[in-house]
């Protein structure tokens, strides 16, 4: 069995992947749901049937040129820690991490294609790109899917399109999404109206790991919800238009905050730095929320010499499974909080305090 840890790119490297607008758009993703014509959906199929489906699909996926030298494994061969690491890297869904016999994963070396077999559908293939690259991701996945359809007999109906286990994915089976870092809109208290108007356009806004408006680390996922009655390009274009507007609003919000409430901004960022650089015990949730402010500080030029990739790397390595992986012994939550704080302090040793331009109207202090 291949070692997942050796296969995945080191966090420092994956944090250094760049793409257009990656100051705000952390990553782009397009997912397609497909099923085989002659089999029950994974949630209803018996174990033997699921294994048969996996044995049909896995070699077909592995044989694609895009998947040369890929990581391919049945889910029951992966340990709980490895699965959690894949979730933290957004390479598989939480739902897929909970699967056992009859489910599988094929992941390419560049981590740009990830194919989940027997998740909710027989096939959930995704193309991942850093920054805002929805069109590129869609084109790549479209080609990928076109090659795969020559090897597999998809369940397709002329009227209903690609047939999926859940009617919410019927038709194109596409989910286009982007992960956005929006600290400006959150601090400026503009995020709720934005979420509401995005919802009105039939798009969903979720937090980093799920529902609720108070997203961890000010990270939000925006995605389409409707899959039937509209073609893939239209869905991609609509999302791109909305994202362009959100990016504009976020940039404006940052600008306005700096002009109108610089003290508030500096206070948040300074305190975040203070805690991260000096804490001896810190939870994963607090770390993420403070790292978000540190990231904002880097964007605003408050930490000359520090790179955004350092923050993004910390974002990844401070999460529970990644942290656990670095220590051979099993850690309790309390022990993890200590280790996490040690690591963050160490990594921020060379990052100096935020440099704040003093306001000309201010008096001597």
């Amino acid at each position: 069995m291949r070692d997942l840890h050796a296969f995945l790119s080191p966090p420092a490297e994956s944090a250094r992947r760049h793409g257009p607008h990656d100051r705000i758009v952390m990553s782009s993703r397009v997912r397609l749901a497909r099923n085989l014509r002659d089999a029950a959906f994974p949630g209803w199929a018996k174990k033997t049937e699921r294994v048969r489906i996996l044995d049909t699909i896995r070699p077909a996926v592995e044989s694609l040129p895009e998947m040369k030298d890929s990581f391919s494994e049945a889910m029951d061969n992966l340990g709980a820690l490895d699965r959690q690491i894949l979730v933290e890297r957004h390479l598989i869904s939480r739902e897929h991490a909970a699967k056992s016999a009859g489910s599988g994963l094929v992941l390419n070396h560049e981590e740009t294609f990830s194919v989940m077999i027997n998740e909710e559908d027989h096939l959930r293939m995704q193309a991942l790109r850093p920054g805002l690259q929805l069109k590129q991701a869609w084109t790549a996945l479209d080609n990928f899917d076109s090659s795969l359809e020559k090897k597999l007999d998809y369940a397709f109906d002329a009227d209903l399109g690609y047939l999926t286990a859940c009617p919410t994915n019927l038709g194109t089976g596409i989910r286009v999404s982007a992960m956005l870092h929006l600290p400006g809109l959150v601090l400026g208290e503009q995020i709720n109206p934005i979420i509401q108007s995005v919802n009105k356009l039939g798009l969903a806004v979720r937090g980093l790991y799920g529902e609720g408006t108070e997203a961890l680390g000010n990270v939000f996922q925006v995605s389409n919800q409707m899959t039937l009655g509209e073609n893939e390009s239209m869905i991609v274009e609509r999302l791109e238009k909305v994202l362009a507007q959100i990016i504009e609003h976020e940039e404006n919000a940052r600008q306005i905050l700096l002009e109108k409430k610089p003290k508030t901004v500096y206070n948040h960022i300074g305190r975040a730095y203070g805690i991260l650089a000096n804490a001896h015990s810190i939870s994963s949730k607090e770390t993420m929320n403070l790292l978000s402010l540190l990231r904002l500080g880097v964007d605003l030029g408050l930490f000359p010499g520090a790179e955004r990739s350092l923050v993004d790397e910390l974002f990844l390595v401070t999460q529970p499974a990644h942290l656990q992986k670095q220590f051979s012994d099993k850690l309790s939550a309390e022990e993890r909080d200590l280790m996490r704080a040690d690591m963050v302090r160490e990594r921020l040793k060379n990052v100096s305090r935020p440099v704040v331009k003093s306001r000309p109207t201010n008096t001597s202090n």
Partner: protein
Amino acid sequence: MQCSICKEKPATVHLTQIVGEKMQKLDLCEDCAKAKGVNDPAGFALADLMLGLGAAQEIEQAAGGAELRCGRCGFTQADFKKSGRLGCPECYKTFCEGLGGLLKTMHKGTRHVGKAPESQRASSENADRLKALQKKLEKAVEAEKFEEAAQLRDEIRQMAERTTTPKTFTR
């Protein structure tokens, strides 16, 4: 307050979500909340849950109270009510009547527009072209243009052969 799913136990989990301009509320008991995955925020959307409930009701109505069962995989409307998912691709035919209304509320349209597997695409394109050629052939025969008619006949014959290897057609 009663649980909106089992309608038996008292509701202790209360959910509110804004979908479009409507505010949706749902009250669940502990057990149903767990069964629906409400505790796992990633896998849970109120809209899905509500639509799932609505769908089962619509299917029930369409079936006139009788229990529908998929002939291919044995999935029943009760199963759909429970999971909000279908059993196999064939289920879309079995439960098609009840699904129509559901799809309308869920999606932009009820007919697929967008990508189709090449094999499907080719066969429908072929059918259109074949029809056009046959019309031309009829006209040519009527006008006694036999040379043209012979050519068209050959073309039609070739096409019929090609339908078995649809790869000759691309977008």
